[in-house]
């Protein structure tokens, strides 16, 4: 009996101590107020744990084989990559927040869009830090709206831009001579080639982006959507046009539109087997590694259509209970450096575009960036920039999910 009493006292004591911490914000500001040299000095010799989605061997190898050894050499910081889905990371942080756990296991998270919005709203991030990063201030256009808002959520310096991707369509140039240049032409193409096109359903990240492109195309101009917060009445006309368009192409989709792929992976598999002749996705260079692995046919190329293609930025951030914020700052600063961004741009590992401002780089570096051959399937930088369209607010994603089901699937 005595044992039980002491055990419950012990547990109660734990509960009490756990609930008495709330000075994170202040502590983090103290850290970011230091000089950069001091931050670097205290980062040296420490370990930083980077939690990120781990489902792409190119990205994993970029971190394991390039970033980790380089970071060790430059800053003496050892980086540990931990594969975990962002949803689980946020749930873990949320519970730790509730329990008042101040010594977390995560130092850096890879994040954007709705996840960032959730993390920010629930105070799961350490605070504003991008202003202290020398590489960010020197080589990035700090005023760029793409770094100021993330799917309509104000960034406020709480995450640093790591990469940017743009939505493109892929096609097999052996089967299609000239890809469609607008959504109208796509419609005609689908009619002429029944069963050779489909898109992932609206719950999928990519499928939803495709649908938002259709919405952009049916508005007076795309900025009517991405500059406006979601107002169903205001966009009712564009929405009508979108549903009509989708219902028109439906009978000529793969399996007559009775079934949509559940994920981009499914669509990619259909494309890789030659069932459908087009696929799509964020990251304009993603076909390169798939071609090299022999998953996509070698004749795969990409295209964008009028009125443009949506692109977004993804970021690195620091959670509220990181035990090594100095190390995290040093590591993020390094991952934003021209050298790291250049290696990321090369198709060897990842082949992903950089948010860096090429104009601000020293001449030699500039040339290196411009001479990177991203691969045959990737559109030219100017073509991508010309067609670039920003993301709309995160609320559109949810709206599209619900409406698509009612207006298209159930028709």
């Amino acid at each position: 009996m005595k044992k039980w009493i002491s055990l419950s006292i012990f547990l109660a004591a734990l509960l009490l101590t756990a609930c008495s911490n709330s000075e994170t914000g202040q502590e983090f500001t103290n850290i970011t107020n230091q000089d950069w040299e001091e931050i670097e000095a205290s980062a040296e010799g420490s370990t930083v744990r980077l939690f990120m989605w781990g489902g792409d061997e190119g990205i994993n190898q970029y971190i394991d084989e390039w970033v980790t050894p380089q970071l060790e050499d430059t800053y003496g910081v050892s980086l540990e990559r931990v594969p975990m889905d962002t949803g689980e990371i946020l749930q873990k942080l949320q519970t730790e927040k509730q329990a008042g756990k101040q010594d977390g296991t995560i130092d850096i998270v890879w994040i954007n869009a709705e996840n960032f919005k959730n993390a920010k709203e629930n105070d799961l991030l350490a605070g504003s830090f991008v202003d202290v990063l020398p590489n960010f201030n020197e080589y990035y256009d700090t005023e760029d709206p793409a770094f100021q808002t993330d799917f309509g959520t104000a960034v406020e310096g709480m995450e640093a831009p790591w990469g940017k991707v743009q939505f493109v369509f892929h096609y097999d140039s052996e089967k299609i001579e000239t890809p469609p240049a607008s959504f109208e032409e796509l419609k005609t193409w689908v009619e002429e080639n029944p069963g050779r096109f489909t898109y992932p359903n609206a719950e999928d990240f990519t499928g939803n982006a495709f649908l938002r492109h259709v919405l952009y195309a049916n508005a007076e101009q795309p900025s009517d959507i991405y500059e406006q917060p979601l107002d169903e009445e205001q966009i009712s006309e564009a929405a009508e046009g979108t549903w009509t368009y989708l219902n028109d192409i439906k009978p000529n989709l793969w399996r007559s539109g009775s079934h949509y792929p559940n994920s981009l992976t499914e669509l990619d598999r259909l494309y890789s087997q030659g069932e459908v002749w087009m696929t799509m996705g964020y990251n304009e260079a993603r076909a390169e590694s798939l071609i090299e692995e022999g998953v996509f046919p070698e004749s795969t190329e990409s295209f964008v259509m009028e009125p443009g293609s949506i692109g977004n930025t993804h970021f690195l951030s620091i959670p509220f209970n990181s035990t090594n914020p100095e190390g995290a700052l040093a590591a993020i600063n390094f991952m934003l450096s021209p050298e790291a961004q250049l290696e990321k741009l090369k198709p060897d590992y990842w082949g992903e575009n950089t948010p860096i401002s090429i104009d601000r780089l020293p001449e030699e570096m500039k040339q290196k960036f411009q001479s990177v051959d991203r691969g045959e399937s990737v559109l030219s930088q100017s073509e991508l920039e010309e067609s670039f369209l920003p993301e709309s607010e995160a609320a559109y994603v949810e709206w599209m999910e619900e409406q698509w089901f009612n207006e298209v699937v159930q028709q």
Partner: protein
Amino acid sequence: MKKSTFSLFALILFLFPVFMLVLQSVSETWRFQSGEGIQFQLDSFDVLLSDPNLWEATGWSFLIGTVVLLINLVIGLGTGKALTLYSFRGKSLVEAILLAPILIPVLAIAMGLHLFMIRVGLADTWLGVVLIHLVPTVPYSIKIFHNAYRQLGVSMMEQPLTLGSSPLYQLFTIELPLMKPAIRSVTFLTIVISLSQYAITAIIGGGNVITLPMIFFPFLDTANAAIMAAFSIWFSFLPFGMYVLVEGALLLLPYSKKPWRISQ
């Protein structure tokens, strides 16, 4: 069923899919519609073996799976026997409560348990992961052993008692040898369930404990079927290996037919 029919079904339902999986893991994307044949490659295994976490993760999965299995056997045997031997008021209620964890999704209780584990200091440790893996496994073990004891019958347990056997001696000489099928079921079920927990392992293990699914599951998003197949084959070695170990342990029980002894 005739033996030949059985072999035929085994071939179609088991051997053929396994063969396809192995074939997929060493070949490039299949494009049969376009008239291409199969092209072989070994890159998928390169990717698999180049993952720096692979061996560590396999080790963690093995350790956690083994401990979860041992605890399951202890709890399952004890509870199963108690439920068979004793009758008391509210027994069906107790049985229902013991089964409850598999009726409620584990993720729904994971958050509450995570909170608790943070407070007692078990979060981010492998012991915490073992505990959370007990939630979706123990109810099955209890159910299986409860049934096994019921089939054995109360008289079978009263007999050794009247002859003066100690409970432990009785367990090893009578109960375990007679309940081998139940032990096999529990072994397989427990290991497979424990091995395939992704979300709860990620949350409770906090990235300190990297198990196989944590490397494996994100690759479900890849269109490269060969990599998926290679991972699946690697994945299947663990339960298979542990099953063989348990079979070996079962041979040590008294009254077991030893394969190295020629039977009459």
